[in-house]
């Protein structure tokens, strides 16, 4: 019982550690998108699509961590 509890707690900690990188990455991507849009508002659509794509790539790592927390 104790070991099972520790193991499941460790999974959550592992997922939390895995979410740090994507969190920073999406933050930087969003910053770039905002700054770019403020400078050239006519490019907003193109920038936002690229932001979504970049965020999706960064988010993939967090999602893999999410899956691993479930299946391990």
């Amino acid at each position, binding site marked *: 019982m104790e070991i099972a509890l520790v193991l499941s707690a460790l999974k959550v900690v592992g997922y939390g550690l895995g979410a740090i990188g994507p969190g920073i990455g999406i933050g930087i991507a969003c910053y770039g998108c905002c700054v770019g849009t403020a400078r050239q508002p006519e490019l907003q*659509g*193109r920038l936002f*699509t690229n932001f*979504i*794509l970049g965020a*999706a*790539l960064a*988010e*993939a790592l967090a*999602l*893999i961590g*999410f*899956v691993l927390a479930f299946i391990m």
Partner: protein
Amino acid sequence: MNALEVLSEHVPELQESFNSAIVIGNSTFGLTQYTLWMIICWILTLVVVLVAGRKLTLIPTNKFINTVEYGYQFVRNDMGEGVIGHGFKKHVPFLATLFFFILISNFVGLIPGCKTPTGTISVTWALSLISFLYFVFWGVKAHGGLGYLKSLAPSGLPIVMVPIIWFLELISTVIRLLTLAVRLYGNMFAGHMVLGIFALAASVFLTVGIQSFDLVSGVLSVPWFLLLIFMYALETLVAFLQAYVFTTLSSVYISLATSAH
């Protein structure tokens, strides 16, 4: 009686309610609640779109038709023309179907008592498989079978780098299947779990406060309830955003697969 202890006793019950359970028929031939709600959402999508598309006029006659047309135009302009560019018209029906189905599924889940079909991995897995097969199909159609495999690696690389980059691109293409499914599932499931926890906390704190004349617990139920309202508003945003992200990523993948490098 401590309110937090009562809360932790009730949490497994909440988790249990998210598992698939058979509501009609038996385990060989029957429907789980998620399948049932998926069929309901499917019918709802058909009804909304067909009713709106029945009386098309140049100037929309009522607000409902206007809303659906706005949604369609949003998919067509933002996700079709803006992302795919040339030759986007043949992909718009697919993208619009995805968008409306996911949007309606996500919003149905926000109504208390209803289940969101996208809150289970099976439905989102099927959706992402459809999207994956669709963009691979159009990629193969545009480049040919071998040509599509070759076009995974961008052209103009040094010859030594091509196998490594090609392999990495292959992995990142296959992993799209996983990320599309898990992104939608994770967002909807986690959002509903958070809503459930806050609703449970608000009711448990109030019940304990009344039963054992504990003023602190009773008062603490108010911030839980306010948090619940805040999270509910956030989930409404997330429900729209995830439908948007899923459709946009599908169209980005289509444009990556069909465009010549």
